[in-house]
C-alpha cells in the first residue's frame, strides 16, 4: 500500500469498522475501545500523509482515480490539495476527540452510536478529498444520515423538531446542488472537478452557493442552527460546528469560487454582504444567547461569515487566512462544545442563570475554558487572531469597509466570549453548581487537552497552515491555475 492509498483508507477504514461493529458480537467496552482505536489510527494515517505531503508542488496529491459510472464520465476520484489536507486533519482529530468523548460518557446503545460516529468520519473525510462532483455530492449527503440519527436518538428533549429542521434545510440546499451538478456535469461532459472547465453560468453558481451557504451557515440560511446545536449531544454538536460546517466553506472554495470565477466576481458584493451580516448578526445573537451552547452556536455562525468574507474577498492574504481560520475555529468550537458537555454533565444545564462560580476548586476546567475562550476571541498571538488578521487585511484590499465591519465584530466576539467565561466560571455560584461536582477528570483532559495543544501550536506557528495551503505564494492565482 502506498501513501496515496491512505486517502481511500481514510474514507473506508471507518466505514468498514462501523460495519464490523454492527456485525461482530462485541462487548460494550470493546465496541467503544475499537471505535476510539480506529479514530486514532485515522489520526496516525493522516499524520503520515501530512509528513509526506509536498507543500511546494502544485496539483493534486495522493490521488486515486477509477471509473465509477462510465457512460456519464463519473469517476471515483479522490486526492488532496494543501488546504484539503488540513481539513482532513481537522476532521480526524476532532472526530477522535468526539468519539473518545462518547466513550467517556458511556453513550447508550454503543453499537449503533459508535458505528454512526465512524460512518460520519468516513463521509466527512470523503467530502474533503472527493475530486468528482457526484462523489462530492454523495459524501456531502452521506454526512447527513448519521447526523440525523445521532441527533434524533441521542439528542435532547426537543430533538424531533431539530432533526426535521436540519434535514429539510440542508437537504433542500443539497438537492438543488444535485440539479446543478447534473446540469454542470452534462454541459461540460465530465464530472471530474480537476478537469472540468470553468463555467460562466450564474444559475449554477447560485445553486451551489445555496447548498454551501445553508451548510456553513450564512445569514439568512441559519434557521436550523440553534435547535440542532442545542439538541444534539455535545460531542455531535462539536463535530457539527467544528467540522461539518466547514464542508460548506470548503465547498465554496473548491467548487463555487474555483469553477465559477465570473459569477463569483459578479455576486461578490452580495455574498460579502451576506457574510458580513452573518458575522455581525451572529455575534449579536451570541451576545444575547442565554446558554453556553447558544453562545458557541451563534459564534460559529459568525465565524462562518468571517471565513466566507475571507474566501470571497479574493485576495491572497484573505484566502490564506480563511483556511487558517477554518482549522482554528474548527478546533476552538470543537473544544468549546466538549467543555460545554462536561459542564452540562456536572450541572445538568447550560443556562447561564443557573450556572456560575464553576472556577472555584476546578482549576483544570477553568484553565481550559479560559485558554480556548481567549483564543476564540482572537487575542493577539492566538491562531484565531492570525486567521482573522489575514482575513481582514485581505478584505481591506477589496474595500476598507469590509475590514471595518470585521474588526467591529471582533470586538463583539470579545464581549460574548467574556460574558460566557464569566457567567460559567465566575460570578455568584449558580443554583445547579454543587460543591461536589468534580473538576475535569483525566479522561476528559485527555480529550480536550490535545485539541487545545493543537491550538497553541497553531498560535505559535500560524504559517504552518497559512503558508502551506496553496502551493506558491499567490493563492488567488493558484485557485485559478492549480485546480484546472
Amino acid at each position, binding site marked *: 500500500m502506498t501513501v496515496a492509498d491512505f486517502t481511500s483508507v481514510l474514507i473506508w477504514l471507518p466505514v468498514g469498522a462501523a460495519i464490523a461493529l*454492527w456485525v461482530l458480537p462485541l462487548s460494550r467496552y470493546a465496541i467503544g475501545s475499537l471505535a476510539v482505536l480506529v479514530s486514532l489510527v485515522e489520526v496516525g494515517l493522516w499524520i503520515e500523509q501530512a509528513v509526506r505531503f509536498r507543500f511546494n508542488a502544485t496539483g493534486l496529491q495522493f490521488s486515486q482515480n477509477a*471509473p*465509477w*459510472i*462510465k*457512460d*456519464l464520465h463519473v469517476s471515483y476520484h479522490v486526492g488532496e490539495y494543501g488546504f484539503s489536507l488540513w481539513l482532513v486533519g481537522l476532521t480526524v482529530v476532532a472526530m477522535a476527540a468526539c468519539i473518545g468523548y462518547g466513550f467517556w460518557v458511556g453513550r447508550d*446503545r454503543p453499537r449503533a452510536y459508535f458505528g454512526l460516529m465512524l460512518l460520519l468520519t468516513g463521509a466527512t473525510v470523503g467530502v474533503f478529498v472527493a475530486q468528482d462532483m*457526484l462523489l462530492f*455530492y*454523495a*459524501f456531502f*449527503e*452521506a454526512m*447527513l*444520515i448519521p447526523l*440525523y*440519527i445521532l441527533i*434524533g*436518538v441521542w439528542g435532547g428533549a426537543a*430533538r*424531533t423538531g431539530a*432533526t*426535521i429542521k436540519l*434535514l*429539510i434545510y440542508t*437537504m*433542500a440546499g443539497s*438537492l*438543488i446542488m*444535485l*440539479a446543478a451538478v*447534473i*446540469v454542470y*456535469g*452534462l454541459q461540460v461532459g465530465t464530472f471530474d472537478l480537476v478537469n472540468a472547465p470553468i463555467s460562466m453560468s450564474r444559475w449554477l453558481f447560485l445553486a451551489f452557493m445555496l447548498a454551501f451557504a445553508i451548510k456553513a451557515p450564512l445569514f439568512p440560511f441559519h434557521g436550523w442552527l440553534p435547535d440542532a446545536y442545542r439538541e444534539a449531544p455535545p460531542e455531535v454538536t462539536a463535530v457539527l460546528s467544528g467540522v461539518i460546517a466547514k464542508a460548506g466553506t470548503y465547498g465554496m472554495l473548491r467548487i463555487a469560487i474555483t469553477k465559477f470565477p465570473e459569477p463569483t466576481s459578479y455576486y461578490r458584493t452580495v455574498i460579502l454582504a451576506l457574510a458580513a451580516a452573518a458575522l455581525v448578526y451572529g455575534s449579536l445573537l451570541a451576545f444575547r444567547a442565554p446558554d453556553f451552547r447558544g453562545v458557541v452556536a451563534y459564534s460559529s455562525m459568525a465565524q462562518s461569515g468571517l471565513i466566507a468574507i475571507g474566501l470571497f474577498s479574493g485576495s491572497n492574504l484573505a484566502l490564506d487566512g480563511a483556511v487558517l481560520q477554518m482549522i482554528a475555529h474548527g478546533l476552538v468550537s470543537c473544544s468549546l462544545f466538549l467543555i460545554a458537555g462536561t459542564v452540562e454533565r456536572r450541572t445538568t444545564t447550560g443556562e447561564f442563570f443557573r450556572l456560575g462560580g464553576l472556577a472555584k476548586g476546578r482549576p483544570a476546567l477553568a484553565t481550559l475554558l479560559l485558554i480556548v475562550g481567549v483564543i476564540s476571541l482572537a487575542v493577539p498571538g492566538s491562531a484565531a487572531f492570525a486567521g482573522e488578521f489575514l482575513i481582514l487585511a485581505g478584505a481591506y484590499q477589496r474595500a476598507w469597509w469590509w475590514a471595518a465591519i470585521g474588526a467591529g465584530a471582533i470586538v463583539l466576539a470579545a464581549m460574548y466570549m467574556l460574558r460566557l467565561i464569566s457567567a460559567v466560571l465566575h460570578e455568584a455560584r449558580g443554583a445547579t453548581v454543587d460543591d461536589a461536582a468534580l473538576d475535569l477528570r483525566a479522561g476528559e483532559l485527555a480529550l480536550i487537552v490535545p485539541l487545545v495543544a493543537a491550538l497553541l501550536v497553531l498560535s505559535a506557528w500560524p504559517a504552518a497552515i497559512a503558508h502551506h495551503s496553496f502551493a506558491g505564494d499567490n493563492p488567488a492565482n493558484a485557485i485559478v491555475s492549480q485546480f484546472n
Partner: protein
Amino acid sequence: MIHTPHIDWFSIVPILVLLGGSFVALLCAVLVPDAWRRTVSALVAATAATGGIVTSIWLYVDSANGHRVIADSFYRDRWTALSQIILCAITLATVLTGAERAREHESEFFALLLASAAGMAFFVGAASLMTLFLSLEWFSIALYVLCAIDYELEGALEAGLKYLVVGSFGSAALLFGSALVYAATSHIGFVEIAAAARSHDLLLLLGLAMIIAGLAFKSSAAPFHMWTPDVYQGAPTTVTAFMSSATKVAAFALSFRVLRTAFPQEEHLWSWALAALAVASLLVGNLAALVQKDVKRMLAYSSISHAGFILIGLSTGSALGARALMYYLIPYSAMAFGSFAIVAARERELNAPVTLDNLAGFGWERPFLGVAMWFFMFGFAGLPLGGGFLGKFYVLSAAYEHGWAWLVVVGVVATIVSLYYYLGVVRAMYMRSPAELVVAGGSPPRERLLQVAVGMAFVVSVGSLFAVSPVITLARHAASALPF
C-alpha cells in the same frame, strides 16, 4: 389446414418454467397432505423462480442480436431477458416472504404467484398488440385473485374487487386503444404499426392515448392511480410487495418498448404526455404520502411518486432514458419489495395493521430489519445509501439531456418533499422515547426466510450503488435491443 409457425422454444423457457412451477404447485393443493403442503409448494415455487432466473440469464447471454420469434409475436432480446431476470428475482423473494405465513390456500397462493410472474415475463416480451393484451390479462387476473386470497383479512376482498373493477377498466381502455390503432394501420405488430402509421392520423393518436392510459393504470401513475392506495393497503402484504415491484417493472419495461417501437413518429406527443403524467404522479404521490399514518398506504403513495420518477426516464425516449429506466427499476424494486416485506414482518408480530405509531421501537427490537428499513427509506429519499440515489441521478440526467431542465427541477422539489415522510418512518422506528414504545407481546416470530428476502433486497439496493458500472452495462445492452 392451419399453418403453425416455427416456435423458438428456448425464447420462452423462463415463462414455461414459471408456468410449469405453477401447475405443480397447484397439484400440491390436491396431492400433498396438509402438514407438508406449504413447505412443498413453497419449495416448488422457489425452484421455479430460481429456474426462471437461471434460464433468463442464459437467454440474456444468448440473445445479443434481438429479433422476433413465434410468428413475430414475441421479442427474444436482452430487454426482455433483463426484465425477466428482475421479475424472477422478485418472484423468488416473494416466495421466501410468503413461505412462512400460514394461510388457508397455501398451494394456490404460490400457483397464482408463479402464474402471474409468468404472465409478466411474457408481457415484457410482447411484440404485438395481441400478445400485449393477452399477457396483460393473464398476469392481471392472477393478481386480482391474489389480492383477495386471504379473504378473511379485513379489506382483502375489497382490495381484490377494487383492483378487478379498476384494472378491468384499464384493460378495456388498452384494448379499445389497440383496436383504434389497428383500425388506423391495419397491423398489430409493433414494427408494422410504426411502418404503416401516417402522420396526423387522429384515429391512431386516440388509440395511442388510450394505450398509454391503460398502461398507466397498471403502473399506477397519476391520474390513474386511484386504486393503488386501497389495493396496496388491503391486499396481503406479501402480495403488495410483489405488486409494487414486479408490476412496475413489467409495465414500465413494456411501455418503453411499445412507445419506442410502435410509435416513434409520435414521440413529440407521447413524451409530453408522459412528462405530464410524471409531474402529476410526483405531485399526487408526494403530497398524499405526507399525511398518511398507515405505513402500507404511505408506501403506496411513495410508489406512485416513484412511478413519476421512472416516467421522467420514460418520457425522454432516449437511449440514456432507457438505461436510466432499467437502472432505476433494479434498486427501486429491491427497496419497494424490501420495505413491504419488513412491514409484513411487523404485521405478523403485532397482528394488526402497521402504522407509524406502532412502528415505534421496531428498529431496536429487530436490528437487521430496522437497519434495512432505514436504508430503504433513505434510499427512496435519494440519499446516497443505495442505488436509489444514482437512479434519480440517472433519470434526471436523461431529462436534462433531453433539454428538459424544468423536469430536473420538478424532480428535485419532489425529492425534498418526500424526505419528510420517509424520515417519518425512521423517526418512528428509532427516535421514540421508551415511554411511547408499544409492547409487541412475546418474542417475535423468527421468519428466517423473510429475513433472507429482505437481505437480498438490501444487497441489491446497496450493491447497485457500488457496482454501478456492471449494472449499467447490463442496462445498456438491454437498451440496445430497442430502436433509437
